[in-house]
């Protein structure tokens, strides 16, 4: 039975809060924002139907404070909570607390979140469901002899990983048994020093890998659909920078095959709502499951543009116990979409955070351009939260059209006051290997993109030097005369052209 949701509290901020607010407005659901001290002037507060203050700037006391958020939801009568991505979106205790209070959590239930949040548990479930993972040990390795056995079976080179690591830490490469024995000792010692215990596992080392993921949706009737793939190989330090759909290396047959595997993964954990199955693809074309991201993802617009499915509205429909209204074979992939994550980081200074006031900005638009952002002229980029300030998504009938529209968008996008990753993306869109689709997770280093960015910036500086000097001359003249020394013809307050348009 459909349980109509009348109000949704969005326990998030920034562009994703705005994205959910827009979906609510389309459906006619009351949107309720929450905000920290730092976000009083943020766009999600302005655009929501209602907004409630929940605490100080630190996320732990606001957007991560479960009790405050659930209390607020109860107090103001929110029937559901949309967690966005990050913050509490994959927190099983939060989902459970919502369930207990009778609030609909727009996402999977707490049991599924518990499995998907535990890499080892998830891997075990997937093995049972015949979802291929990266070859490796079944769980924690106890001693170096066992490690050597496993490595021998799966073949060298292998990676030794600490179960407590993450983000690239606690990972060692071993090319042969001698190295393995040495590294095993090292990682064990490190792990014991840092965490008081050692828990290592082994995985096959995959060279020149691509990160390819499948968008999934599953409703409360057990219907599962995949909404094709997204290639997210352009990364820096395991952070995705550019995503696209389709992947240049996925043909229809592969899409169907891996899509079915992804659906099996969702069924295995009795997944509910929208999620993503992430895979690694080696250069031989093998796909290995790595994890399920149990939330709406940053890069979801890419899928929305090529499928025509509004994923946030779909999430709400599924949360209302509606059935997915289309069959797998009714879904068609249309054109190509590319997303650039515009981060407030200085690519010329080791990607260090760049925060502060944005006195002015100009957001691109035009054919095929979509921008999801919390920026507006006069806004502030806070250092308390994530560095993602905007997503530029371009759609085209094919990759080339999408690429050129992305390029247009990047060159039209100006953000004053902060440094962003835009110069790097301007370099990537015209880089030959990107154009050829020759991608891998080490793309940025492999093709020296940082050097290429410096070259491009230098070239552009010399192209703009005359204009910059002209501006300086104008300012000198201005300063000399204390005001505009040049006569202006005043623009008419109302142009005839505009008037004729209004009267049409």
């Amino acid at each position, binding site marked *: 039975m459909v349980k109509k949701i009348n109000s949704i509290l969005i326990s998030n901020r920034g562009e994703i809060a705005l994205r959910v607010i827009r979906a609510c407005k389309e459906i006619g659901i009351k949107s309720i924002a929450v905000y920290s001290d730092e976000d009083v002037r943020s766009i999600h507060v302005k655009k929501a139907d209602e907004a409630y203050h929940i605490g100080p700037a630190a996320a732990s006391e606001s957007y991560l404070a479960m009790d405050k958020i659930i209390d607020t939801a109860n107090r103001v009568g929110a029937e559901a909570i949309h967690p966005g991505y990050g913050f509490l979106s994959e927190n099983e205790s939060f989902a459970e607390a919502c369930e207990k209070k009778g609030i609909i959590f727009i996402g999977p239930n707490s049991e599924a979140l518990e499995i998907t949040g535990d890499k080892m548990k998830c891997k075990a479930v997937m093995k049972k469901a015949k979802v291929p993972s990266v070859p490796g040990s079944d769980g924690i390795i106890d001693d170096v002899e066992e490690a050597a056995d496993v490595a021998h079976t799966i073949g060298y080179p292998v990676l030794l990983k600490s179960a407590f690591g993450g983000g690239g830490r606690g990972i060692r490469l071993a090319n042969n048994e001698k190295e393995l024995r040495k590294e095993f000792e090292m990682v064990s010692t490190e792990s014991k020093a840092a965490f008081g215990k050692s828990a290592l596992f082994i995985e096959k080392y995959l060279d020149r890998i691509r990160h390819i993921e499948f968008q999934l949706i599953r409703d409360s009737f057990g219907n599962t659909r995949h909404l094709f793939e997204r290639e997210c190989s352009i990364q820096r330090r395991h952070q995705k920078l550019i995503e696209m759909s389709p992947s240049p290396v996925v043909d229809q047959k592969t899409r169907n095959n891996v899509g079915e595997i992804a659906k099996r993964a969702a069924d295995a954990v009795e997944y509910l709502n929208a999620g993503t199955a992430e895979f690694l693809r080696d250069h031989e074309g093998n796909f290995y499951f790595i994890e399920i991201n149990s939330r709406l993802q940053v890069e979801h617009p890419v899928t929305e543009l090529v499928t025509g499915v509004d994923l946030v509205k779909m999430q709400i429909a599924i949360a209302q116990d509606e059935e997915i209204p289309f069959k797998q074979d009714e879904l068609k992939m249309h054109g190509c979409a590319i997303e650039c994550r515009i981060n407030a980081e200085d690519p010329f200074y080791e990607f260090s955070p760049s925060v502060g006031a944005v006195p002015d900005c100009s957001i691109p638009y035009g054919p095929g351009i979509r921008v999801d952002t919390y920026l507006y002229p006069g806004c502030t980029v806070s250092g308390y939260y994530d560095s993602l300030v905007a997503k530029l998504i371009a759609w085209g009938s094919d990759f080339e059209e999408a690429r050129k529209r992305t390029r247009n968008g990047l060159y039209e996008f100006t953000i004053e006051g902060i440094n962003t990753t835009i110069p790097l993306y301007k370099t990537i869109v015209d880089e030959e290997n990107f154009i050829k689709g020759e991608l891998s997770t080490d793309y940025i280093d492999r093709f020296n993109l940082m050097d290429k960015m410096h070259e491009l910036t230098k070239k552009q500086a010399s192209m703009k030097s005359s204009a910059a000097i002209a501006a300086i*001359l104008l300012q000198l003249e201005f300063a000399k005369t204390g005001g505009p020394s040049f006569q202006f013809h005043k623009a008419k307050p109302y142009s005839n052209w505009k008037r004729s348009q209004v009267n049409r």
Partner: protein
Amino acid sequence: MEFIVGDTNEAINAEIVHSLGKDSILIKINGKEHSIKLLKSARDEFEFILDNSFHHAKILRSTTAELVVLIDGQSLQVKRHSKLTEVLEKSLSLGKVAVSQNNLTSQIPGRVVSVVANIGTSVKKGDSVVILESMKMQLGVKAHKDGTIKEMKVQQGSTVARNDIIATIE
């Protein structure tokens, strides 16, 4: 007047020739004449058509020695070049270095998560002195030279802005 744009070492000569009446001006860059049609003019913001292309410019910073110009969204550093400024720059920067060479400044804004090296600690160039957090990233502010921490200007929990002095190292 002479200018050096970005990190090119070429000096570019430029001057205003004369007004062409209305809102048009004639300028000369490296001996070549260009016409400017001014569309908008404020103290540090200009919109103009140079030859046949539109440009939007904001003067973000301006000192005797250099300017930062945001031209069509791209920020460019332009040095004013002359024998006089060269001499001035040299003497100024020499004086500045003498005072500031002990100061360790932060290149990024953030909150101090922890102080790694306390007063009296000897550090080597490149050692982390304090750890800053900004946008969920933790970054070390690294000693710019070998020495001993003489003064610590921040403590755990302090907020620092870009170019704030973190510590002095002697």
